[in-house]
């Protein structure tokens, strides 16, 4: 016969890869979008100088004296002070344009602070303003202290965020990349056409997962490099360990994506299902803030989510330089979950 032999799996894999890199939108959402997100979130949460405290003083005989006392009592000049009519001051406080309003002392009453104790910025302003005024009035601090500010790479919010974004991308890429594409092939009746051939069905599903694995490599490199170049993100772990952890996560979400898509007959259906499955993980898995914020009753659920396990492992390896073996349990959990989903998907898969 001819040189082209019976070899379904490599051809199916090439089919997947070609369908991906020839689709500019797919490439953007997989690689361009996470970079964009990293940049935007990085800018939003970059380290800024300490915030200024905006103080309004009610106009009157004592107003200038209060302004002078505030300036004298704070060494770092943290206050932006405005003197306004009393009604204007209250209006600005109500709208959040200033954090606190000071009424100067009169012959009948001591100075008064108008602020909202339920607003952290307002409560903080009350403490700082009082501190400054008391010092100016002559209060001496009985205890001498020394400030030692820390803003090292590794402890910043962006450093917590980047492994989170990587994990989110591994999840989204796997779920959408496999779930959506599978249903699209079903809608086109291409799946039906494929099962009308002698193609081994398992090979088709393997090619979906395998193709996804190939897309993961540039994904990891792109996100981590963007973090390093733009924000000086510190990578403390070895690349091999990072790839091993990311692959385990990708396998898991490829399996979950395949299971979500195994029966859906319309693109709208699978889009809804994917969102339903991913939503709890976006919220609960410690993407943007630590899972320790959730109450104890939720913890079993939080810890059972595969994204939680993936993010813990990623942060341990990337930020703390942990080894793969230190993450054996979460990685085995991810692989097992992916494997179970794959087998169920193969069993329940709707081809026609």
């Amino acid at each position, binding site marked *: 016969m001819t040189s082209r032999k019976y070899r379904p799996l490599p051809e199916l894999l090439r089919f997947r890869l070609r369908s991906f890199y020839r689709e500019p939108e797919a490439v953007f959402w997989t690689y361009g979008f996470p970079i964009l997100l990293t940049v935007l979130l990085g800018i939003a949460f970059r380290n800024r100088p300490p915030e200024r405290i905006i103080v309004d003083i009610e106009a009157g005989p004592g107003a200038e004296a209060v302004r002078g006392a505030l300036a004298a009592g704070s060494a770092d000049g943290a206050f932006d002070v405005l003197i306004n009519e009393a009604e204007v001051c209250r209006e600005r406080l109500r709208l959040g344009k200033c954090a606190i309003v000071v009424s100067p002392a009169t012959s009948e009453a001591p100075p008064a602070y108008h602020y909202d104790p339920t607003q952290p910025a307002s409560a903080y302003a009350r403490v700082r303003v009082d501190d400054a005024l008391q010092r100016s009035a002559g209060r001496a601090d009985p205890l001498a202290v020394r400030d030692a500010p820390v803003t090292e790479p590794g402890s910043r919010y962006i450093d917590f965020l980047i492994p989170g974004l990587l994990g989110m991308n591994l999840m989204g890429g796997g779920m959408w990349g496999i779930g959506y594409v599978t249903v699209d092939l079903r809608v086109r009746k291409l799946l039906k056409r494929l099962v009308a*051939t002698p193609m081994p069905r398992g090979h088709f599903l393997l090619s979906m997962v395998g193709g996804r694995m190939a897309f993961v490599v540039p994904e990891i490199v792109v996100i981590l490099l963007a973090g390093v170049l733009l924000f000086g993100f510190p990578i403390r772990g070895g690349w091999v360990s990072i790839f091993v952890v990311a692959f385990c996560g990708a396998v898991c979400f490829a399996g979950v994506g395949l299971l979500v898509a195994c029966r859906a007959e319309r693109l709208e259906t699978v889009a809804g299902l994917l969102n339903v499955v991913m939503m709890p993980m976006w919220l609960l898995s410690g993407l943007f803030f630590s899972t320790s914020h959730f109450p104890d009753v939720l913890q079993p659920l939080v810890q059972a989510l595969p994204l939680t396990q993936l993010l813990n492992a990623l942060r341990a390896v990337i930020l703390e330089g942990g080894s793969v073996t230190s993450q054996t349990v979460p990685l085995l959990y991810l692989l097992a979950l992916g494997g179970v989903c794959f087998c169920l998907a193969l069993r329940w898969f709707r081809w026609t």
Partner: protein
Amino acid sequence: MDTTPAILCRDLSKRYRQRQQAPVDALRGLDLEVRPEECFGLLGPNGAGKTTTVEILEGILPPTSGTVEVLGRRWGHDDRALRQRLGISLQETRLADKLTAFETLCLFRSFYRDGSDPEEVLATVGLSDKRDSWVVNLSGGQRQRLAVGCALVGQPELLFLDEPTTGLDPQARRSVWEVIRGQRQRGCTIVLTTHYMDEAERLCDRVAVVDEGRVIALGTPAQLIALLGGDHVIEFTLDANGDAPASAADELRRMDGVRGARRTNNTITLTVAEVHAVLPAVLRRLEARGDRLAWLTTRHASLEDVFVNLTGRHLSNDQQEVPTTA
């Protein structure tokens, strides 16, 4: 020649259950026997059960009841070995947009242990000059030929083509017909569904006319046309109102040499054996009645006439039901 039928199915029925609706019986006891190396046509209007039938034969759809043997084997045991011997083109498959024609054939080739070189198949279906074009950039006819190519690439013994020319322009249809004829000459058994009677007449050795889930007539195109009693048709339209066309049809039906008469509004269709003998007599009779002709034509009878004669309806769904008086 091998005497085992390529396809044998008995008393096939298929019931589709639908949510909150009465179940639909797509097939109601359909029997078929396809001989080796013949081109067999399933002819019928949309919704007759043609696609359901071929998908059951292809092992894609399970029948509700009945037996199916394909190349002497039944579905459900070592299906992949049987699939190695089949070539299938489904109705309305959208192949992957961003693969080239050649890559698409290579993909399908990889599923078969033995088969043709994808380059040769491209030449067979006349797409060699489109080798490196993405599927999304091919015309409808080219895509259809590529779909047929995907069915040929495993060098099948038995080829299923479900409406291979639906929606194509006449030239594109002819080029698909050429491909099918070529496979027929190679000794491939072909099962073809169509709702175009000219396609069935040109390509098929035998035709089963399917309607409402049953085979209502079976034979060579010539045999089926012979069922009409004559193989010529005289068709004319009367420039008249009221009862005139109906009474004219009744009167003409009783004339010598006229084998059948049908009326659709003002148009009367007569089936006759010998046009030259009957036509002058028909014209004289109409003149004597005082009916005036608006239009007249004669032609060979077609499978369309057979279908209308059997069911009282036209094959294509865009025509209204015929108020038959035959």
